[in-house]
């Protein structure tokens, strides 16, 4: 399936890209964007200031085991967990763990992926082919399983989760950036820069990078959604989180055995928190992709 070549003609048809202000207008009028962004901002605020606003100490020190598994009441609006800790406090404080880990992993993957994609797209040839094969190999195993495998090998810890997700994202993001660089490389400004004999790295990072920024922003928001999903699945499975830290996935895993006894509050509320965060992040990602592409 060879692509037909358009290089024969003296001029090429360029489709005018939407300007920055036009893109913002599309985004500003999108209801899904605002709904998603509002929820995300609320969780970010709790992640940053959680310690100051929670009614009780989320770590539950000293342990209040006499009041364990209490149903929601005036004192504990969302009840208490198996160690007598306030569920509301732990749900609010739990936003920090998932958001920092997912954000760090996505930033890591985006930086490496962008650098790799720029170089590969510009260099092309054999490097390009190797990247594609490595990407395919990585993508043959679901991210959750890759994470399980790596964390078993390295020993479970939060840093491991960040590195593993970041590393798997690297070739995925690189491939997207590479495709964008390939289409930029044909444009006149790059040819002009090359004729001026600008340094290759200069052309890449100063001339091409700003023009593929849109692609990177879209990719970043989409990946962030996947990262949150994976971080939570791994913590639900018990990989990579220290047990005392308030974490939504871990809260569900620790308390799901009580469900059949009718004790639903330590499970349902973190589940709702997860649902609201992932749906919100994906609404934002979806509206950004629609506005930017």
């Amino acid at each position: 399936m060879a692509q037909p070549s358009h290089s024969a003609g003296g001029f090429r048809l360029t489709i005018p890209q939407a300007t920055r202000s036009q893109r913002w207008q599309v985004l500003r009028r999108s209801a899904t964007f605002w709904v998603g962004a509002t929820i995300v901002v609320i969780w970010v605020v709790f992640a940053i200031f959680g310690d100051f606003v929670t009614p009780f100490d989320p770590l539950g020190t000293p342990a209040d085991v006499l009041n364990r598994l209490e149903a929601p009441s005036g004192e504990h609006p969302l009840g208490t967990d198996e160690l007598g800790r306030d569920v509301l406090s732990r749900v609010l404080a739990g936003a920090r763990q998932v958001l920092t880990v997912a954000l760090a992993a996505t930033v890591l993957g985006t930086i490496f992926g962008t650098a790799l994609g720029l170089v590969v797209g510009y260099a092309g040839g054999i490097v390009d082919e190797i990247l594609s094969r490595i990407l395919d190999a990585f993508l043959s195993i679901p991210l959750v399983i890759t994470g399980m495998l790596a964390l078993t090998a390295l020993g479970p810890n939060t840093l491991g989760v960040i590195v593993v997700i970041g590393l798997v994202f690297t070739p995925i993001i690189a491939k997207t950036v590479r495709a964008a660089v390939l289409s930029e490389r044909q444009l006149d400004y790059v040819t002009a820069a090359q004729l001026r004999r600008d340094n290759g790295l200069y052309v890449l990072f100063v001339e091409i990078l700003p023009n593929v920024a849109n692609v990177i922003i879209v990719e970043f928001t989409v990946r962030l959604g996947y990262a949150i999903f994976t971080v939570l699945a791994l913590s639900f499975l018990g990989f990579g989180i220290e047990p005392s830290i308030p974490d939504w996935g871990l809260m569900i895993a620790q308390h799901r055995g009580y469900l059949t006894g009718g004790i639903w509050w330590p499970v349902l509320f973190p589940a709702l928190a997860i649902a609201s965060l992932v749906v919100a992040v994906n609404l934002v990602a979806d509206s950004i992709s629609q506005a930017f592409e």
Partner: protein
Amino acid sequence: MMGRFVLRRFGLALITLALLSVLVFIGTQLLPGDVGRRVLGPFATQESVDALNARLGTDRPPLVQYTDWIGGAVTGDLGDSITFARPVTELVGRALINSAKLAALAFVIVVPLSIWGGILAALRRGRLIDRLITVGGLSATVIPEFVSGIVLILIFAVTLGWLPGTASAPRGSGFFTQMRHLLLPAICLTLVLFGYIARITRAGVIEAMEADYTRTAILKGLPRRVVIRREVLRNALLPTIAVVASQMGYLIGGLVVVEVLFSYQGIGQLLYSAAQNADFPLLAGGVLVVGAMFQGSMLLADLAYSWLNPRIRLAGSG
């Protein structure tokens, strides 16, 4: 030329699989450092660690270990599991049969449902039902399986008592009892897949409806129903087929979480317990099989797509 395309695609799958085996080998036999020590823990004597390493063959040079492992894999021997003391292939095979039952039920529910949903959304484009299907589908897709699973268990197993909250039916139960137990986990998987397949179907239908051949058919005076069935669906469902087949990989990842949540003895649960027990031979073999199945299904998806699409099937022959 179909033959050359098949051959090239098959070669690529093999190369990818070889790369994957190297990655899995690094992950399970190099990264852990002293495998025997990792399995037995910090308090085991050095002699027992050495004995285990000798038995597992992890005291040999990496290259020998790898060629031995991959040579065995090609002939269907992936070594023995440490925790279960049984051949890995046997354990993986049995778990895959269980997972296949669950996956089959999920596919039987999700494929017709999501294709119907996608067509409906496309035909009512921009209206309320379209927004409901696309935004609702996207939301259901991104919510982790253990979250939707917990809510389903809470509603249908704990509160209403309609369906069992665990997936494993008692030994020797009939087909319908087994399916009843699998219904909640299958709905979990359905929720995730629905939005994705519906979205692709919707995009395909919209594209086909705007195509020239559809316009021609309408202008020819064919009834709307006939146009949709004969022109639109036949073209729109092409990408959908490829997407359905390519969801295998997701499905296995989703199975880990769903099977752990519903305590079901499938491949996901097996990999999970292998990871928990640092059972590296089982983990390596299981992940390799999963990767091979994924490559196989992608290969089938590509072949089906190109066979159905004459533009690819006949490309290069002119």
